[in-house]
């Protein structure tokens, strides 16, 4: 409840600041004006938002699936660790955002380049969180499994993977937080639809209030995605104490 009051206070301060400073709406529109645009252009905003939401969601799913698969492969195979793991680590030095124009060049202005961008940007946090979790299994559990004559496969599936779920859950949260960045960057670089596209278009035409309205929807989308991921993460590890509980 209190953070909501703080947010409302900040919005009020913004309104007063614009009014006192006499700023024109194409520089900084007051929240009341943004609200009006939100209502008037609701259909347009929702249509563009559905594109962006689709890109975020598909990118998140793709990144989670590919990242988890690679983490499990690294945990299971020493050869993969030796030949490919250093490469994955070093690849983090590449600013992924710089690849966005290339993705648009290869995959076009449609959804595919944004999905790829979002998947790419969350790929490493997912790999590293799950792989870390798989590596840090309680040695006591592994020894217990050894005295029980468990095969490496059974140990991986029944002990190491479930034991890594808390680490994976934090990876999912990070992924949900950064997936929108990938989608929006992709739209800025080159797109024909989406909230990021709408923002660049309306700013270029001096329709700053519409850009702010798109930004508002984008924030809500990001929050919704994070909340969904957080719920999923909690369901994955019911035995684990959570932050804020």
């Amino acid at each position, binding site marked *: 409840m209190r953070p909501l009051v703080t947010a409302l206070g900040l919005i009020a301060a913004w309104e007063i600041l614009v009014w006192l400073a006499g700023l024109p709406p194409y520089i900084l529109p007051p929240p009341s004006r943004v609200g009006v645009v939100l209502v008037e252009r609701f259909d347009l905003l929702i249509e563009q938002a559905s594109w962006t939401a689709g890109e975020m969601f598909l990118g998140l799913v793709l990144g989670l699936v590919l990242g988890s698969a690679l983490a499990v492969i690294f945990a299971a195979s020493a050869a993969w660790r030796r030949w490919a793991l250093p490469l994955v680590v070093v690849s983090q030095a590449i600013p992924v955002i710089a690849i966005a124009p290339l993705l648009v060049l290869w995959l076009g202005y449609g959804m595919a380049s944004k999905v790829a961008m979002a998947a790419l940007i969350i790929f490493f946090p997912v790999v590293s969180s799950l792989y870390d979790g798989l590596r840090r299994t*309680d040695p*006591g*559990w592994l*020894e*217990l*499994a*050894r*005295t*029980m*004559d*468990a*095969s490496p496969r*059974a*140990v991986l599936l*029944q*002990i190491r993977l*479930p*034991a890594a*779920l808390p680490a994976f859950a934090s990876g999912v949260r990070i992924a949900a937080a950064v997936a929108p960045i990938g989608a929006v960057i992709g739209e800025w670089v080159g797109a024909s639809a989406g909230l990021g596209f709408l923002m660049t278009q309306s700013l270029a035409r001096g329709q700053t209030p519409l850009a702010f309205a798109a930004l508002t929807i984008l924030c809500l989308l990001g929050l919704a995605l994070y909340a969904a991921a957080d719920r999923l993460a909690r369901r994955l*590890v*019911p*035995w*684990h104490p959570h932050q804020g509980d």
Partner: protein
Amino acid sequence: MRSAHIVLDGHVVAENLSLDFAGGRTTCLLGRSGVGKTSLLRHLAGLLPCTEAAGPVAYMAQRDLLLPWLSVLDNVLLGYRLRRDGAQHRAAEPRARALLAEVGLGDRLHDLPHTLSGGMRQRAALARTLCEDRGIVLMDEPFGHLDAVTRLDLQDLAAHLLQGRTVVMVTHDPLEALRLGHEIRVLSGMPFSVGPVIAPPGAVPREPGDPALLALQARLIGELRRLS
């Protein structure tokens, strides 16, 4: 166990060690912290590098090592789950339920371990160890971190459930060794040597208030102090 060398992190813990354990009985290995009791037990379990297990063993560590995502019942059946033998798994389930009832967890079968108290968790671990049904049971200070009364309760329970099994238990608590051990051997020195067999009179679990037991406890404590 014949002519074993136990090395841990470059230190020789034991040299040319030969030990016999009485079949169907409980042998308690008593020694102060750091003497190498746990290493000896891990050697027997085949958990140290370059060692083979002494045979099929069930191992109970100091910590309960219950898997937090499995119910109490599934934890007790962990060995069967890991060996992925469906027929054996099904055959073992009634035994797991019976064991859990015996350790007083018959009404907590489907609860997750984090809902249990420390004593209950250790009882579940005891049930898991016994459910394995192996020839040799190895126990590493299994009740070390429980409060005194819970510890006595669990010792009674363990003595009852371990009847007829070959058990090697290491402990630093002379009273625990005297209550549970058909045979007691004192470990001392660096690398450690194993003292002669001490066989206290009477059936296990022995009463903690028995004057003969307390006299023996005083003697063991004296010995442990002198040896260090």
